[in-house]
């Protein structure tokens, strides 16, 4: 157990060290190409200098690509929402916990990679500068309340640290040979986090109350979902939706046109593609308890459905019901996996 004072260079030395000592086969981390920054899988220690681990960019939730991986062992440098997705997938037996070393840093908020290739965390000043250029944070980050790393192998604190960063870990073995300097977590950090949290919560409340109004009546809900073309992108990009064969790909869920007749009889007419509401409700039921609210679904939706707001409301409600914060702790059991003898009297 230890906390160390480090700087940007130390992070790269850590990653390089992991590869050099053969502790891991490869590292999943953001790195800079000619102009742009992409999520990459690096195996050559020589290329570590191109990495930009703290780059505030989010194109998709990289936990999705770690499902059922066959690596001997691998390190990943991920944002808190991705790390939480990994923890959930470990609990859902989709990722093995013994072949993955998770490193995660505080996240001040991310922007879309197409808006710029920034490799430094977006401090307040940086954000002001970007707003000037008309670039704003991704909507998911404006309402994100879990911007500090969950329970991971190595976590890096950037918020509230005056210079450099603080690295905290339970197991010092990966740090061998780096002879990092011990360091204490500064007092000011909590206040700083508190401040950011207050701002984000207010945004979230606004967004949630607005979507609740839209969902509550049939007419407004139709407005929300009517543009959906069942391209199922949101399912593809969601890290938690891991079924090998989704119900909507089975004969019952994926009706051929002539089979739609049987379904159309019920209401006299059938929207094509069918089952729009049923599809979204099913996604809600299966994913709500583990959703990490990373916003990948909304960004993947070609028809701009307000999916982030929807999930903020739905996942927020379900996780609050079971007092469960998805992905925060490794040992906290999944809500629908356990039960208590006497609980939820109000349901019945």
């Amino acid at each position, binding site marked *: 157990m230890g906390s160390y004072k480090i700087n940007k260079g130390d992070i790269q030395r850590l990653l390089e060290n992991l590869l050099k000592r053969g502790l891991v086969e490869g590292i999943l981390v953001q790195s800079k190409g000619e102009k742009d920054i992409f999520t990459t899988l690096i195996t050559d220690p020589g290329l570590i200098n191109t990495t930009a681990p703290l780059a505030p960019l989010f194109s998709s939730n990289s936990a999705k690509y770690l499902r059922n991986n066959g690596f001997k062992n691998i390190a990943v440098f991920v944002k808190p929402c991705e790390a939480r997705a990994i923890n959930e997938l470990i609990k859902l037996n989709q990722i093995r916990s013994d072949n993955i070393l998770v490193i995660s840093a505080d996240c001040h908020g991310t922007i879309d990679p197409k808006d710029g290739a920034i490799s430094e965390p977006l401090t307040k000043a940086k954000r002001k500068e970007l707003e000037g250029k008309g670039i704003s944070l991704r909507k998911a980050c404006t309402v994100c309340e879990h911007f500090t790393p969950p329970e991971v192998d190595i976590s890096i604190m950037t918020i509230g640290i005056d210079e450099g960063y603080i690295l905290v870990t339970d197991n010092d073995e990966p740090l061998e040979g780096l002879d990092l300097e011990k360091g204490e977590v500064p007092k000011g950090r909590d206040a700083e986090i508190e401040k950011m949290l207050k701002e984000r919560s207010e945004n979230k409340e606004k967004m949630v109350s607005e979507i*609740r109004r839209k*969902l*509550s*009546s*049939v007419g407004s*809900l*139709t407005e929300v*979902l*009517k543009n*959906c073309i069942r391209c199922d992108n949101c399912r593809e990009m969601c890290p938690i939706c891991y079924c090998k064969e989704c*119900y909507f790909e089975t004969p019952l869920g994926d009706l051929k046109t002539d089979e739609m007749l049987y379904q159309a009889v*019920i*209401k*006299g*007419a*059938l*929207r094509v593609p069918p*089952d*729009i*509401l*049923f599809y979204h*409700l*099913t996604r*809600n*039921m299966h994913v*709500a*308890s583990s959703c990490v609210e990373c916003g990948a679904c909304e960004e993947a939706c070609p028809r701009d459905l307000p999916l982030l707001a929807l999930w903020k*409301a*739905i996942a927020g*409600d*379900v996780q609050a*019901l*079971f007092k469960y914060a998805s992905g925060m702790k490794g040992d906290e059991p999944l*809500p*629908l996996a356990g*039960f*208590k*003898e*006497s*609980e*939820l009297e109000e*349901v*019945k």
Partner: protein
Amino acid sequence: MTKKEEKVIEMDEKGDFEPKILGFLCNWCSYAGADLAGVSRYQYPPNVQCIRVMCSSRVDPMWILKALTDGADGVLIAGCHPGDCHYVEGNYRTRRRIAALKKILENYGLSDRVFLEWVSASEGKKFAEVITKVTNAIKELGPNPYKKRWEI
């Protein structure tokens, strides 16, 4: 009345709304309770169409969502009293699933159409009361808004 003209019985003669409710009864307790209600000739409204499942925990929430989106006016899940479950803990899991499902449906204004009840094999009278309660509650709520809406 062949299949083609089969009309969903919507309104009864007096024109007030006759809900169509789907029921899932667990074989060991609530189905036996339903049988006992029958044997003791307790009368209750015919609006609930029951399916026998071996345990209330056998009910997949997706069936409930499919029923609601297809226009069923309500769904009842009936199981054994906690502690009585023939499979020891089935009803405990059902309780959590339905709690999560109802919490989600609250946002869509459909939560009040889903009912979870515990009926034991010797509670014939209670079974009749549960069916009556559910039917009246749905009658007050009115028909399922998605019954005729095909847009989504």
